[in-house]
């Protein structure tokens, strides 16, 4: 084990601990951000660019609740878990180039997920770490090179099935898990977002939020 991987392992250890023990929450593998009182889940598998998009949004004034874990309590609120965003491989350079002022933690090179760097959560997000958000949108982002922007709504059933795939503890919660997930897709519209440009993706998600605020 590499000493230089310690901070990355620590972060994964924290994720593991939450995923293994915090069953008061329905836990989904998803970034969570908020703008104008709209909580947005960015739910996707690893490598689809959800952390990069979450980092971009948080550097553009969105509130960051988590880049990795959506914690949904029994009142269907999103519980913040404000911690540094974990960026991998090319994402590190992408964010560094777009935001030269951003501070990064030390690189963890050649981990089993590649190179990792951590971007601090905005101080304003950390300050609000005890304040829950209301889920209003579920977005399934998918980055691929040269993709043109595509933003399409998907049905709540379809969204629920995809979220089950992204859940850490859905089977453990049993009936409660099903009910909470069904309520979630009931109150939060689901959209698919394909993109290659972070500017386009941010503009698209901001438009969705602004249409729904008020």
């Amino acid at each position: 084990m590499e000493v230089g991987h310690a901070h990355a392992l620590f972060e994964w250890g924290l994720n593991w601990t939450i995923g293994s023990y915090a069953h008061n929450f329905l836990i989904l593998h998803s970034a969570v951000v908020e703008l104008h009182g709209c909580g947005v889940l960015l739910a996707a598998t690893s490598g689809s660019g959800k952390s990069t998009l979450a980092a971009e949004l948080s550097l553009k004034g969105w509130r960051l609740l988590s880049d990795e874990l959506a914690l949904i309590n029994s009142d269907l609120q999103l519980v913040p878990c404000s911690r540094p965003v974990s960026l991998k491989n090319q994402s590190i350079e992408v964010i560094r180039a777009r935001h030269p002022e951003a501070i990064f933690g030390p690189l963890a090179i050649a981990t089993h997920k590649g190179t990792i760097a951590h971007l601090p959560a905005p101080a304003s997000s950390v300050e609000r770490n005890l304040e829950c958000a209301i889920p209003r949108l579920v977005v399934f982002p998918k980055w691929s090179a040269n993709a043109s922007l595509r933003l399409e709504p998907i049905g709540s059933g379809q969204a629920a099935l995809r979220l089950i795939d992204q859940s850490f503890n859905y089977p453990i919660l049993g009936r409660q898990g099903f009910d909470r997930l069904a309520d979630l897709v009931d109150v939060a519209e689901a959209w698919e977002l394909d993109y290659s440009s972070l500017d386009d993706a941010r503009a698209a998600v901001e438009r969705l939020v602004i249409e729904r605020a008020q």
Partner: protein
Amino acid sequence: MRNKSPLLNLLTGDIFVEQLNDEEISLLLAEARACGLLTRIAFALARTHGSNSPSSHLADQLSAATIFFGGFKQDVLRELSHIEHALSNLKVPVILLKGASYILLDLPPADGRIFSDIDILVPKSHIAAAEAALMLGGWSTGKLDAYDQRYYRQWSHEIPPMTHLQRGTTIDLHHSLVMPSCRVRVDSAKMISDAVQVSGGGFWWRLKDEDMLLHAASHLLLNSEFDRGLRDLWDIDLLYRYFSAGSGDFPDRLLTRAQNVGLVHILTLALSLASTNFGTPLPEFMRAEKSNFLVRLLSRAATTRHPETKPKGQTAADIALMLREMYLRLPNKLLAVHLVHKLTDLCSAPKKKETA
């Protein structure tokens, strides 16, 4: 004098959870996790405190543990129905043992008891048929080296663990309650032949009350899985209290049965350890003599396992007890073979790691 373990003090009733500060609660949770008792503690505190937990952090941890256990219990019940389906044509009683039987029978030790395998037993004559039926159901023993195959097939009281290819669940299929070669001569056959059908006339059979407790005791004291030792002692305490409350002559019947199947020493040892940790209300004739060497070893091992609170000499006690287990399980010739094999394994293990 009180020791510094919040877990042990809580279990003996020397302190109440309300008296713990945040540091001690944190240590209590860590200790409970280290010996597999977090979910059990959650049930015990819910019984004594209802939903009025003294600290909201503790309450969150306990409710999460309770939710986890709910999912676990569902999984076990579903797995039992899969096993029942797979073995439905076996034509012999299939006895459910230990953790899964506590859940099926809704016995007190079921509450918050997490375990990794489902233990079932069929007569030795039907082991091959049961194994074949389980294989058709998707369970497989996987690859074992020749030595382990022989250890299980020739010497052991169970066949190699069978893991389900899709669900990853594990069954331990037994034909005896202890190793047939065990130096403690236990009349396992008598306990098996006196098993009873679970009421309601269903598929499953169970050991009778006394034998269920005797099996829990022999499992704890003839194996060396002491990382779950405190939980197993608690099971024994809970079973003893429950069966005694149901029938006043249970302690007498238990002792008589232990005499008949060769488990008196094991029983009195287990009960006195349970009593030390959980205050099990024992009649005088059940108490083992204190201050013997084995009791001292066992009370160092079957206790809290957390680095901050474990007793001095726990590792030494674990090793001594593991050697005792091997000695008890195997006659001299087999013991020599087994030790040589394990030592060779141990010496070659680091090399394997380097190449990996």
